[in-house]
């Protein structure tokens, strides 16, 4: 099967999976007691039965389940995720407004964790009993053991209270004025602490994985061949060994992506980062079901896209992976 065919197949499966996610989300929320009308009535300080029925009528909640489901799914197909009564805005525009902030946080922390983790892993594998190796082992123990909300708060105490180097939260500072470059610097300034916090767990994971993977690869016969060819240590490590060691790393990074998305919810809350995580938390507290379902849909969409990208990357790295 050709590469394009395989890709088309993967995208097809991805779409089916998304529809499955939609149906499951919708069903679960419908089964749960209470609905939007109850929440609105609650916010109003109570309402009589006729008002609640009116609200149900307006939101189409008095229709049979399958009609509601069909309306929702076909709406999503037109990129209409419903209407958030809490924010009084269409859910789609609400999410699209918050999504870039989350993607920025998630991707920047993942790139940092993968690049730095791989580098540390390679250095550690070069001298398995050396100081870098010890550091990697320590770092991974620490990274695994420390929950993000705790390490995030520690970072805030250290770099905001004691050494006021970074802003305490948010994404931009409204008082900062200047061209796009100044704005970008301000954004990076705000991004730094949340990014480090979210990256810390994965940095631990990837550096440990890269170390183990590199150690295994460095014992392979083709590494001896590369040395016998006269390649300098640098080329042996970063060309011949690393390309072989990347497979497990890419696989795990792809699989971990959903965990990173949920980690982002916590980190965004700690640093008041105006992304999907903060929105998710607020809409859960407000029982704003259309928004919750919209967020679930978008995060599954991102996870599925990342998984397809992972597959493509693996294929580019290792020619032995058969298409199909």
């Amino acid at each position, binding site marked *: 099967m050709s590469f394009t065919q395989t890709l088309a197949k993967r995208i097809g499966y991805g779409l089916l999976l998304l529809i499955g996610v939609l149906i499951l989300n919708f069903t679960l929320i419908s089964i749960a007691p209470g609905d939007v009308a109850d929440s609105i009535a609650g916010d109003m300080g109570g309402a009589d039965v006729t008002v609640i029925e009116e609200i149900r009528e307006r939101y189409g909640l008095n229709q049979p389940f399958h009609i509601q489901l069909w309306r929702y799914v076909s709406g999503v197909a037109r990129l209409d995720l419903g209407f958030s009564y809490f924010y009084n805005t269409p859910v789609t525009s609400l999410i699209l407004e918050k999504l870039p902030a989350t993607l920025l946080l998630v991707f920047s922390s993942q790139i940092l964790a993968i690049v730095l983790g791989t580098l540390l892993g390679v250095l550690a594998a070069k001298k398995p009993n050396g100081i870098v190796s010890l550091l990697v082992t320590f770092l991974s123990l620490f990274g695994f053991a420390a929950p993000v909300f705790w390490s995030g708060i520690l970072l805030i105490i250290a770099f905001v209270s004691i050494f006021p180097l970074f802003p305490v939260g948010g994404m931009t500072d409204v008082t900062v004025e200047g061209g796009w470059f100044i704005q970008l610097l301000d954004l990076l300034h705000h991004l730094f602490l949340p990014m480090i916090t979210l990256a810390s767990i994965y940095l631990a994971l990837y550096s440990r994985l890269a170390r183990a993977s590199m150690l295994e690869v460095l014992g392979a016969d083709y590494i001896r061949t590369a040395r016998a060819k006269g390649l300098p240590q640098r*080329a042996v490590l970063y060309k011949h060994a690393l390309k072989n060691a990347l497979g497990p790393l890419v696989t795990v990074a792809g699989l971990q992506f959903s965990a990173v998305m949920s980690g982002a919810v916590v980190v965004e809350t700690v640093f008041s980062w105006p992304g999907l995580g903060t929105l998710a938390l607020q809409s859960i507290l407000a029982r704003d079901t259309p928004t919750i379902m919209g967020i679930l849909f978008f995060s599954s969409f991102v996870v599925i896209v990342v998984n397809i990208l992972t597959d493509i990357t693996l294929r580019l790295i290792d*020619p032995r992976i058969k298409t199909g």
Partner: protein
Amino acid sequence: MSSAIANDVPLLSVKDLVVDFKTRAGNARVLDHVSLDIKAGKILGIVGESGCGKSMTALSIMGLVPNPPGKITSGSISLNGRELTDLSEEQLCDVRGSEIGMIFQEPMTSLNPVFTVGEQIAESVRLHEKASKQAAMARAVDMLKAVDIPEPEIRARAYPHQLSGGMRQRVMIAMALACRPTLLIADEPTTALDATVQAQIFDLLQDLQRDTGTAIVLITHDMGAIAELADDVAVMYAGRIIETGSVSNVLSQPQHPYTQGLITCVPHLVPDPPIEREVLREIPGMVPALTNLGAGCAFEPRCEKAFARCKAEKPALLQISESQFGACWVLEEESA
């Protein structure tokens, strides 16, 4: 047949090479005062059982002894008059692949699975000859053609897993010879291949040797290959060379009891006399552990001819004829 050893300056000269490995069981002397000479354009065979130090000799010449735990303790290795044991890692990188090429025994795993074979051959041409990408790839295709790979332009773009074992070993040979080294080390190049492919690879090595004049160190336990290809042969046992000389002398008149045993162990397709079925011979006993070699000859426990002196002292190489040396007290007694 060449009257080997001595005469003109050898291409590669190994003198009194000692290599030690630190192990949990103590220090293992994997090479014990090994001396070898090989002249330009000749083929030297090294034979012996597994673990006798054949491959370690090759790795020492390449400067690839795994360190730690291994270490060249003393001795000298000189190539074209240049001392290799004194070179820095950087200088050794210039020698490897350019002056000395090496082929390994596992063609299935010795090629990097994630690069095309053309790229793997071209890489060393780019490295050592500062060739451009196109020129290096053109050389890779030429080399694939030289090792008789059909459709070399297409095969150059193939990945190792798309080739058979014999093909991969041809690629290894092409890679080792791409920069026209003066010395090629072939470490059991056919062990992992089936018999018909073995013969093809040996033929190929012989042809290439004739065409290019590259000297070859052929490490093997195939006595037949030694008889057919090599000019000289060195027999190793427990880290020492116990007999060396021209192939014609050593194979027809083996002097050391171990060499004699090795040669009688080779089964013959047509038994002589032809009526009775030939019994497969073996040398009784086992190779001793390198960590607890005694003061005497390492072969003594398995030797039929051993006597008191063999237990007490290690015999040195003794010249038996113009082109044959043996390390055995029995030979010493006879010549005395």
